[in-house]
């Protein structure tokens, strides 16, 4: 242990920044007790965090922060708790090391929540990108940890450091479990660092998502403005770069062209008002558009500016995901029946967002055909809503242990 401390001290000199917690908390974390999943004190902590976020006026500027506050309300977390049995025979695994991605600002908060809700102590590495909502959330959380939830301090350390195999190796060597967000490359690189022998490693690899819209049900829906807002939240809110943001839209039903015209004109209005795009994003989209043009039989659909890019594909395959670059880049294709989505249901497919269809029918198509992909089927507007079951895994079960008698 003394040796570990010496290693850590020398690492600190290499600029690990503790944005929450401290070096001594890290050092002692392995000696801390673990708790039962969804313990009352954990639920109270999140309820207090939720309330603090919502009563901080600045929070309103960040819709993702507000969404997190609603997500971590006790009332909402109880839904997850109530779906589980025998929690009183379970305990957290111990120490979890989280590597959060840099493209979705508040992903780290959900990852930390999983760790705490499963009953663990946590070290979270977050990106050094200066997200304002991250700074605000940390400020609010640290205040709670200094005051009413002082005892929780020993459970949470949040760090920032430039990539460094030694530091990652050190934190990993302490961990009973590791959550690697950030895609295939990151997973490959982080996995060169060993966990403890009992360590459980979960890598959230590169995924893509699709949407299915029933044109006729869309056309008769009375509040298309809301639907546009839902779709906007699913996509543009994170520059369409979250794994769960749909990049391919399947249109089903009779009046497809009428529905598309209406759908995109509603979205255009919203995007023009709210979305800002940068030069690198438009250049990236232009490049990907030409790449799609060279590989697929397709047609570009004219839009009023570069905020929305639409390409209509006549035939689709799973490789199309490699060309989806986010920032408002949409591949569209017409289908007559649900089985036509199967070509994209590879391991890469995570979420199916739908409107005007029956979730059970979509699920049945996936199950009956035994395809490798699709772990979530959610209503339009809920693409980014985090669930304790993610990428097909129950993360609470994964990061806790069961005691049998």
């Amino acid at each position, binding site marked *: 242990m003394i040796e570990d401390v010496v290693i850590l001290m020398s690492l600190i000199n290499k600029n690990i920044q503790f944005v929450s917690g401290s070096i001594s908390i890290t050092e002692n974390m392995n000696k801390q007790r673990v708790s039962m999943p969804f313990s009352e004190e954990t639920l109270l902590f999140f309820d207090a965090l939720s309330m603090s976020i919502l009563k901080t006026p600045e929070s309103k500027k960040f819709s993702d922060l507000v969404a997190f506050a609603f997500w971590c309300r006790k009332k909402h977390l109880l839904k997850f708790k109530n779906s589980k049995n025998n929690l009183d025979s379970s305990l957290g695994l111990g120490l979890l090391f989280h*590597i*959060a*991605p*840099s*493209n*979705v600002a508040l992903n780290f908060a959900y990852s930390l929540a999983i760790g705490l809700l499963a009953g663990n102590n946590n070290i979270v590495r977050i*990106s050094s990108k200066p997200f304002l909502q991250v700074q605000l959330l940390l400020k609010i959380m640290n205040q709670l940890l200094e005051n009413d939830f002082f005892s929780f301090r020993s459970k949470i350390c949040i760090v920032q450091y*430039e*990539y460094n195999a030694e530091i990652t190796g050190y934190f990993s060597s302490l961990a009973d479990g590791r959550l*690697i*967000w*950030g*895609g*295939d*490359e*990151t997973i490959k*690189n*982080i996995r060169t660092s060993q966990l403890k022998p009992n360590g459980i490693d979960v890598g*959230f690899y*590169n*995924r*893509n998502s699709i949407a299915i819209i029933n044109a006729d049900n869309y056309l008769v829906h009375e509040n298309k403005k809301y639907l546009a807002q839902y779709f906007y939240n699913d996509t543009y809110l994170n*520059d369409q*770069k*979250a*794994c769960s943001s749909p990049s391919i839209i399947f249109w089903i039903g009779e009046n497809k062209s009428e529905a598309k015209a209406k759908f995109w004109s509603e979205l255009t209005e919203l995007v023009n008002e709210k979305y800002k*795009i*940068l*030069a*690198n*994003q*438009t*250049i*990236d989209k*232009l*490049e990907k558009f*030409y*790449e799609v*043009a*060279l590989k697929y039989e*397709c*047609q*570009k659909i004219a839009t*009023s*500016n*570069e*905020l929305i890019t639409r*390409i209509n594909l006549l035939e689709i395959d799973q490789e199309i995901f490699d060309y989806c*670059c*986010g920032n408002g880049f949409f591949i569209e294709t017409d289908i007559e029946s649900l089985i036509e989505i199967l070509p994209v249901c590879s391991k890469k497919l995570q979420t199916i967002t739908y409107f005007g269809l029956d979730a059970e029918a979509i699920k049945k198509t996936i199950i009956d055909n035994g395809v490798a992909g699709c772990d979530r089927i959610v209503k339009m507007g809920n693409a980014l809503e985090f669930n304790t079951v993610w990428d097909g895994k129950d993360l609470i079960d994964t990061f806790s242990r069961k005691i049998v008698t």
Partner: protein
Amino acid sequence: MLDLSFLLDKDAFSFDNIRKRAIYKELLPQLVKHHYDNCLDYKKMLDVQSYDLSISILEDIPFLPVSLFKKYELKSMLDLDVYKVLKSSGTTGQNVSKIYLDKNNAALQQKVLLKIVSDFCQITRNPMLILDTSETIKNRLNFSARSAAILGFSLFGTDKCFAFDNDFKLDLSAVNLFLEKHRGKQIMLFGFTFIVWKYLYKQLVMQGIKLDLSDCILIHGGGWKKLKDEAVSNTEFKSSLKKQTSLKNIYDYYGMAEQTGSIYLECSEGHLHCSIFSEIIIRNATDFSECNIGEIGIVQVVSLLAQSYCGHSLLTEDLGKLIGIDDCKCGRKGKYFNITGRVEKSDDRGCSDTYEFN
């Protein structure tokens, strides 16, 4: 193929905007049609957007992102006519662009380069000190933009000398000998910006040597991106060199492997100029509409020279602003502009990009 011989007879900066637009209106649709007919990939890219081949307005000609040349062989000629493959000097780890030239296109680039540079200084009858190593141009199989530029420029000099040995150590005795031999004449210096800075200037400073280059003209280019880490500005570059070498005549140029030949040289007022062989359009990021004079946007470059490959209209990853048209104090006609930086390329793909691996 476009016949540009009538342009080759003209001075490189002699057309005002109205005249130039009239000529481009005539030539550009022909050039687009040429590539459309001779490059299947180019045809596909236009067909997908239902492009109307009769479009003749400069700003409405489609533009390809330069990065496409890293992934596709966009050539408008038969394979057996490939004479040379130019490669961009991409940063480490990245793919390089490949530009396919036939004999005519390579010769045309050479002629235009000479015409443009000649407008700034006597280039053909002067001795030339090349600020690079002779090694750079030896490997013709792996022809980089740097070797192309050096070779292009060095053809013009009467006598030439390479300033560095193969390890980029300044060959001071050779340089001094060369300077001594041509004392009293105007000597041309040519090199890449980062090499001039890192290997010439820095070595001189470190060794405490002051060279007398007061009679010389330096033409340098190849971008500022490699000097970004050192945060050297154009002004600082010039004043530092002047201090160490008494070099007064320093011309930066803007150009790229994808459009070799039709380069943009910096005039005495500090502005880059479009010659009659090429044009720039500054575009807004949001809708690719044209920026107003003085507004910073993405630089699109249009060149009449790109004939054996589809590089006639490209969207670069550089940011710039138009300073004016036809009225630069230096007297040159046409558009003049400045390069202000580079578009920050992010590689956020999917949920990747947690770590920036070196």
